[in-house]
């Protein structure tokens, strides 16, 4: 049986891992090379590396750092942040990334998803969606871009469906409302997207208690959970997390 994936996320700024609340008030959380090595060895199922400065400063993703992190990561490794062309994806894949996540550039140019899937295969094209609840509308979320700083009028669920048709192989779905709060994932959002698409959905934003991870995997129908703070600050280890999920009857890869 395919297991549910536990994915630590490295938000990287100026070569350091940082973590904020609702994408703001960043705190230092360590060295990306060391953290990547640690999570890979401790039984994480994948690793995500997001260059969070990239879009805002229009800076290229840090290829050299990706190479260094990849040297010690023997689990699938996704890199994102500021990717705007298929050539950049090619460069990152050659640098040791296994998948690339595209966010703002896909909103500006949806054809980038199709082009990337044709060149590199759908399995390495991850569409990242930063979604926020639309005020005054129940069960509606809109897509935000440029690291959450700019709202759009695009419906998050509709965008996910369209991205799948264009060739995205996976969706990394972050709730802007929940991110960094440790108050639990946005179950309703995750479930709405997971039920609308046939590709895997990674739930992100709001990981707090281990119950919250179990909840988004079960009720939210996510295929994978991404978390940052709870792992970086040592609240839970990967092993504890997996043991807990296993006791809840959720299939995970044992470590």
């Amino acid at each position: 049986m395919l297991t549910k994936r536990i994915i630590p996320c490295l938000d990287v700024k100026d070569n350091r891992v940082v973590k904020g609340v609702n994408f703001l008030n960043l705190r230092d959380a360590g060295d990306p090379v060391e953290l990547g090595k640690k999570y890979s060895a401790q039984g994480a199922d994948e690793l995500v590396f997001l260059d969070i400065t990239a879009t805002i400063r229009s800076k290229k993703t840090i290829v050299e750092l990706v190479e260094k992190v990849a040297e010690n990561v023997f689990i699938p490794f996704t890199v994102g942040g500021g990717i705007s062309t298929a050539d950049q994806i090619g460069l990152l894949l050659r640098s040791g990334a296994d998948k690339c996540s595209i966010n703002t550039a896909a909103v500006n140019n949806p054809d980038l998803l199709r082009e990337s899937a044709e060149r590199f295969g759908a399995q390495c094209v991850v569409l990242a969606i930063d979604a926020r609840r639309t005020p005054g509308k129940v069960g509606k979320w809109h897509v935000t871009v440029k690291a959450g700083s700019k709202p759009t009028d695009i419906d998050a669920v509709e965008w996910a469906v369209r991205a799948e048709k264009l060739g995205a192989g996976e969706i990394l779905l972050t709730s802007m409302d929940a991110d960094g709060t440790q108050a639990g994932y946005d179950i309703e959002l995750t479930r709405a997207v997971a039920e609308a698409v046939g590709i895997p959905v990674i739930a992100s934003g709001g990981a707090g208690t281990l119950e919250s991870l179990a909840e988004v995997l079960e009720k939210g129908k996510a295929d994978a959970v991404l978390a940052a703070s709870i792992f970086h600050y040592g609240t839970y280890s990967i092993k504890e997390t997996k043991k807990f999920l296993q006791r809840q009857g959720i299939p995970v890869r044992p470590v």
Partner: protein
Amino acid sequence: MLVIIDYGVGNVRSVTNAFRYIGSEIAVSCDPTVIRRARGLILPGVGASGYAMQKVAPIAGVIKEQAAAGKPLLGICVGFQLLFDESHEMGTHKCLGLIKGNVIPIPTDSGLTIPHMGWNYVRFAEGMRLFDGLGEGRHFAFANSFYAQVDDAQTQAAYTEYGVQITAAVEKGNIYGCQFHPEKSAADGLQVLKNFVTICHEATK
């Protein structure tokens, strides 16, 4: 020296990193002279198999010649799919024909998400050398929408379940292959690569 055949499709870096990590002497090349001198060959690959076959075509002859000469060959993911007769991904493409069988889409009617993405349990066939020291089965990392159906009683195969029985790994003589990514399957995957290195060294003793 083992050689990772770099024919311009996807990511050879992860495979290189993993072999270096386990302390194996490795070169990345698509030069027939280098390929002929290698103790063993690794054929990686991601993306669509039709496109990959098109890219591998110029050196397909050398690969087949070396395989026929008994040199150990390990296909990984799309490189594994290329070992078979034909792939039906976006049209029909003739592949290397080193293992009898075809590559077809994973059925979507089961309601499972496609790609088959993540860690799945692989049950080994008895005596498969790639899995020496790993017991009866382990979890490995997959990322595939197509799978190979083996059509040859002489090929040993390991399987995983995903709505249908998916071929996870094969061995036939000196031809080895994994649908999953051993280089991305943590300690157990690295053990598979170490086992392949041992196979290569024993073959050329």
